[in-house]
Structure formats: C-alpha cells, structure tokens
C-alpha cells in the first residue's frame, strides 16, 4: 500500500501493467481493480469492454470510468502534495514527471498511483483528476478538475456557486477569521515543510526575509537588497539577479494549479491567489526563468 519513493512508481506501474496490460511507459489513473483501455481515440474512455468483463481482481468488480471529461490542467505537485495519504516522500523534492511525453494515446492520463493491485484497495485517493485532451465528443472542460461526467452527483447550480465561493475564499488553514492565510512552504532538500501566514507580511521583501530565517541553512536570495524599499513587485532586474545570485527560486502554486514565479504580480494579487510555496532548486526551475513577466506553464 505504501509507495515511499518516486522510484517505486515505476515498479508499481510495471506490476500494474502486467496485471492490467497497459502501455508500459504511461502512468495511469488507477482505481482499485480498475482497468483502462482507452482504445478509441476521441471517445470517453470506456472500461466496459466485454473483454474486461471477466478480468475481475480478487472477485471485486471492475470500476468503470466512462465519460471522462477534459479536466483542467494537472499539476505535478498535486500528485506529490504533502499529504501523507499518498505515501510519497518529499525528500529531495521528488519530481515525478507525469508528463504526456511518449504517449501516442490522445487520451493521455496523468496520475499518481499507489496501491496497484486489486487487493491493496486501501488506497485512499484512487480517483485523482485526470487530464484528457479535448475531443469533439466532450463538453467544454469546466474549470474544476472534473473527472467523470456528473460525478459526484451535485447539481450544476450548486457546483457553480461553490466554485465561485472557493475561488473567492482564501485557503484558511486555521480557525476562521479575516486575519490569516496559512500556506505550506516546501523547500527542495528540506526534510519537512513549514507553514506561514501570508497575512503577516505586506511585501515580497518581508516574505523573503521570513523565509530566509525559516530555512536559514539555505540561501534564498537577496530580494530586499535589490529592490527599493516598499516596492510592491520585484523588478525584472531584481529577479534576474536573484536567479543568478542564488541557487534557489521561490515559486508558488496559484488558484488554477499553475506554478508561478514569485514576484510577477502585485503583492495583494499574490496573496489572493497563492495556495502554497515551493523553494525550488534553481537548476530545476528552467521552465520558470522569466525572460518576461509572463505566466509560466507547469512542467506537464
């Protein structure tokens, strides 16, 4: 049931492959005892081929996942999020590449898999969001990470209203109140994460020095010394200096699930949209190096 390191994904995958006969190079969404055929390009993925009917796993039924709609872009960090449930270690900031590279299947799936076989059904999060290329059959992807049409069974009105509410409300990890906004901060190579209250800072400079103190054994960079005091966002020069001067890059995950470089937007906007922070090794941040102030796509 536990996968304690990223390398075990591959072996998990091959186990699963041999049981379920999937393409070996791909990580797949795995429900206990489930199977994917994804045979028809451009269709909702049907698990229910007659072929599958008798391939029960330990007597439990196949769980079909039809009509997968295109979900929103999936970020690798979701998979390796600090939740212990997935049993992933954060050591070394495992960068599991869940990209589509190498897949010819238009219904490329990304997932993090734990508990491969039907027996190990204790997998707590079997149904992670799935990314699927849009095809003419599917509806316009909702902004939320819908994985199956009409599931969970919640009326559209409620779904839409809650989605609006969610995007408005900050992630409040502590007791309610207008005053706190705790987000997790991870650092590549650090053995544990920290949490900080973004509301207690009012500029990038403060944030930077706080983080510096917190992860004092590492050099984060000298945000403050390059910027004008009280400056709202970092200038382009600043960031360039940062990157060159430091082996770390501060990134954050925004509401849409994208990983962004800290410093592009005004502080207020940043705190509104920041869900968590990650201090990345500079060498891993090649895709995020800002040549201009634009939104960066995730690694996938």
């Amino acid at each position, binding site marked *: 049931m536990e996968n304690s390191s990223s390398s075990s994904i591959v072996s998990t995958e091959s186990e699963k492959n041999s049981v379920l006969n999937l393409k070996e190079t791909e990580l797949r969404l795995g429900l206990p005892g489930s199977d994917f055929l994804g045979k028809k390009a451009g269709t909702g993925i049907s698990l229910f081929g007659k072929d599958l009917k008798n391939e*029960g796993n330990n007597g439990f039924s196949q769980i079909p996942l039809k009509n997968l709609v295109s979900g929103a872009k999936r970020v690798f960090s979701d998979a390796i999020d600090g939740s212990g449930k997935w049993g992933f270690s954060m050591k070394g900031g495992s960068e599991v590449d869940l990209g589509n590279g190498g897949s010819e299947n238009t219904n490329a799936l990304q997932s993090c898999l734990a508990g491969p076989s039907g027996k190990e059904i204790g997998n707590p999060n079997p149904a992670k969001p799935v990314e699927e290329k849009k095809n003419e059959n599917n*509806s316009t992807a909702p902004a939320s990470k819908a994985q199956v049409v009409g599931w969970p069974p919640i009326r559209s009105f409620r779904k839409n209203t809650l989605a609006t509410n969610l995007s408005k409300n900050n992630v409040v990890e502590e007791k309610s109140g207008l005053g706190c906004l705790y987000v997790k901060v991870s650092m590549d190579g650090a053995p544990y994460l920290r949490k900080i209250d973004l509301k207690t800072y009012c500029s990038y400079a403060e944030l930077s020095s706080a983080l510096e103190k917190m992860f004092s054994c590492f050099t984060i960079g000298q945000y403050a010394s390059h910027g004008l005091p009280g400056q709202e966002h970092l200038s382009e020069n600043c960031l360039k200096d940062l990157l060159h001067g430091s082996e770390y890059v501060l990134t954050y995950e925004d509401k849409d699930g994208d990983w962004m470089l800290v410093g592009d937007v005004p502080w207020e906007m940043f705190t509104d949209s920041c869900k968590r922070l990650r201090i990345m090794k500079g060498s891993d941040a090649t895709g995020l190096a800002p040549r201009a102030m634009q939104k960066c796509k995730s690694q996938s």
Partner: protein
Amino acid sequence: MQTDPNPKKSKDSPSNSANTESTQLPSPFPDEVLEKVLSFLNSDKDRSSVSLVCKDWYNAERWTRTKLFIGNCYSVSPEIVARRFSKIKSVTLKGKPRFSDFNLVPQNWGADVHYWLTMFANVYPFLEELRLKRMTVSDESLELLATAFPGFRALSLMSCDGFSTDGLKAIATHCRNLTELDIQDTDIDDFSGGWLSCFPENFGSLEVLNFASLDSEVNFDALERLVSRCKSLRVLKVNKSITLDQLQRLLLRAPQLMELGTGSFQEDLLPGQIGDLGNAFGNCKNLQTLSGLWEVTSIYLPVLYAACASLTFLNLSYAALRSVEFGNLLAHCPNLRRLWVLDTVEDKGLEAVGSSCPLLEELRVFPADPYDQHLHRGVTESGFVAVSRGCSKLHYVLYFCWQMTNAAVATIVQNCPNFTHFRLCIMNPGRPDYLTNEPMDEAFGAVVKTCTKLQRLSVSGLLTDLTFEYIGKYAKNLETLSVAFAGSSDRAMQFVLEGCPKLRKLEIRDCPFGNAALLSGLEKYETMRSLWMSSCNVTINACRRLAREMPRLNVEVMKDKESDDSQADKVYVYRSVAGPRKDAPPFFDQKRSNIQWNVHQFAVYPFMHV
C-alpha cells in the same frame, strides 16, 4: 362555465345505475353527496385508489379533482388529461430524469411545458397554480401563462431551464393575483434584474418570493416597496446582490417572515449597522427557515442568534463555515428539524450537531470541494456517527464524504433505525471500507435490515452483488434506488427488480449490468415510474426487445456519437399511456435507418454532450 365533455348522469341515481355495467350495484349515494365527500380528498394516492373502486367513484373523483400531479410528463398526454379532468386548478409536472441534474441528459431532450400550457389555456382557464420540476420553460410559455389565466396565483420552477428574465417580466407585469413566485436551482439567462420592477405599484398579494438563484441585481427600492406592500409575505429569499444593509431594511419591513433567504453575508459594516441588523433579526419572531448566507463572514453570524430560537430549517449549504462558528450558531438553534451544511464544518461541526440538535430529523452535508482540490477534507464517518448518537429522530440523510466504514454505518443505523431516506455518497467511485479494505456491502446490508421504513436509498463505494441481494431481500418499502459504480454482475440488478415490491424509480450509472439484467424486469417496469441506465452494458437490440414485448413502456436510447453501434449508452424506460412521444430529438444520422425499427415505441437519438 366550461363545457363538461362528459355530462353527469341524471340525479335520480339508483335506477340509473342500471345503465352502467350490469355487474355494478346501485350506488347508495346520490352523485352530489359522493362528490362532496370526495372533494375532501387531497392526496393523489387516495384519489387514485378511489378512482379504481367502480365507475361511479371514478367519475365522481375525476369531477372533483382540482390538483393534478404528474410525476413524468410523458407518462400521459395533455389530451388524455383534458378528457378525464375538468376542474383542475393546480398542476404539478415533472419532466426530465433526475440524472439531468448532473448533465447526463442531452440538452434538447424534451420536457417542454408549452404544449401542456396551450391545452391548459383551453381546458383549464381558471388554473391557479403551476409547479414544474426539470421542465423546459420558454419565455413564450411564461408569457402565455401570464396572459391566458386571469386567476393565476402561484408559479414554482425547480431545476427548470429555457427561460430568461424576460419571461419573469411577463409574469410580474400581468399576474395581478400572484401570491407565489418561487424559482429554485435554475440556470437561466439572467439579462437583468429589471423584472422585479415590473410588479405594478398597487400590487401587494405576494406571499412567497424566491429569486435566490438569479444573479443580477434587482432594483432595491422597487424590492423594498414591494415587500412593504405585501403584508402577507411569509417567504422571502433574495439573491447575492442584496447586501447586509439592504437586508436589514427589508427585515424591518417584513418582520412577519417565516422563511428568509439572505443575500450576501459579507460586507464591511459599521458597529452601529451590525447592531441594527441584530435588532432586525431579533424582530423576526416567526422565522422557521433560514438560508442564503452566501459568502458568509463568520463575524457577522451572531446577528442571527436572536432569530434562531424558532428555526426549524437551517440551510447553510452555501456558507463555508468552520466548526467553531458553526457550533456557536447551532447552540442558538435548539429546535432544528432540518439542517443542510457544507462539509467545511468537518467532523467537529457534526459533533456539535449531535449535541445541540436533539430534534433533528434531516441532515444534508454537501461537499465544498467536490473535485478534491484540497485533498479530501470535509467530513468522515465519525461525523456521521456523532450525529446519529445525538439525534435519534434522524430519518433523512444525504451525506457526501471521502471515506466510510461498514462498522460506522452499522452503528449509525443502530442509533437511528427510522431512516426513510438514506443517501450516502462516497465521492471516489468504488471506494472500499478504508479500514478493512472490504466492500461496503455490509454497510448497506445493515441499512436495509435495520431501517424497515426505508423509501429512498443511494448507494456508493465498492459494492458487490451482495449489497443488492440484501436490498432485494430486506428493502420492502424501497421506492427509489440510485446506484453508481457498483455491482459485479447482472444478478445485482435482478435481485432488486425481483425483491423490491414498491420500487418506483431505479437509476443506474456505470455498473456492469447488461441485457440479462435489463430484460429481467420486463413486467416490473410497468409498475414503476421509470428506469435509467447509463454507461452500463446494455445493447440496442435488448432495448428493442424490451420495447417490443412491453408495448406500454417507452424505451428511449441516447447514443454517444462515437460509441459502438450496438451499445445503448443511456437508456430511459418509463411506462406511459400516451404512447411514444413525438418530440424526441431528431436523428442526426440518416444512415442509422436500421435502428428506426418500431420507432413508434422506441426512440434512439444521439447524445450530444454539452
């Protein structure tokens, strides 16, 4: 008045009965007496029973029925209804299958009310009430409704679509005697809030006004004046555009309210304003239902406290409250019977429910984040158990969670054996008992064995055929069953069809049930309102066979454009005395002519997923 298509028999009844079937005894009552007696019958079930006694009673019943309830608009036709009943004043019509709520039914599937309305305009011009659920209603229909029925009083639209605020303008403008305008769960074209200003300045008869699901801002002055004029207003549910300050002014005008839906509960208020708001709530001594609370800022919750003593229904399902402030609020609501919350209150919040609400009968816990963006927070089995410990009268539950155990459910039903509605949604499909890794069969087995009054059941989690064997064996009062991602074989569905005598609605999605299962219910389906099966293993040929063998069933197949030609992706079967409907979406591909066999009973049309 109206021409009665079937003139009554003459008054000297006993001897006239000889004109009816020879097997009938003469009626001991003159028609008028029988009719008078029957006019006191309100329940549809009773009226149906009465109408089956004998021809006299059938006629007396149909001449005295004033409220019409049609659970499936395609089970009967407007013509048939018009022929049978002549004095209808109130109509309830339901249209699309319930799974249309979850986007499983194509957009243009049907259930348009217009044809019904044109019939009503001819036969029931004195229609007063119209309640529609899951029907398509156009602006044109609303205009017809507003102008063709001078005595029209009450309009209720639940989960309907197809109209816009222009239609509402017509209603507001023309319905002089309107007492009820109730719009729920409705996604419509909201062009502007100007419709509310269309109520004439001398109009004051409203008792119920619910526009909570509309988005755009209404003219507040017009609303305030309207509320002041409507002295009998007892239900007011406003939309998000109404601010706290405006709410306070409305409450001052309508302290008699029994049901209140607030607007946005988030605003920067000055301390004086907060006090005013608290007082305004305090004035509402009759408040039984409270809802709305969109975007609630918890620091304002205390303003509600003064109005909570008489609350019996609290709907917090759009308010993302945390356990502490929720608990504080609950402490002021000792008389709650019904509670709807978001799972942001977590188990701790549910423990507060268990301790603060001993009279609770209904609990619904909705997921704030159904797509799991924040990794399975929300409530677990412990919250549910905690509620069951404290609320022994609980009989209706709708519970969304990510994990559950067989043991917890067994405990829950032991604590609350009187469940009539048990709807458990474990949100990841096919999730087993997370502690034992076993299927959730025993959980639902416990439910059906213990809760003998169970009428409605929704199952979830990893389930084998055993669950359905239990259901067929024990759930003898079950009327509605919803199944998703469950079962191992056809036997599961067969157990249910064979074992549940009162089953009326069966809805199934993503289960390994095939033709054998479908066809095992041939006769059963005529005793039910409807069957829905989607993403199962049913073929079109099997549907054809079903249609052929059971002429009084309509069998509709919705095909996914891309899927195998033989697969029946979505099947909707329902009994009907009206025959096949003529308004099914047209075929999009003429080459499928081989499927048009027996088309008068059996419609196959493409599902364009929108």
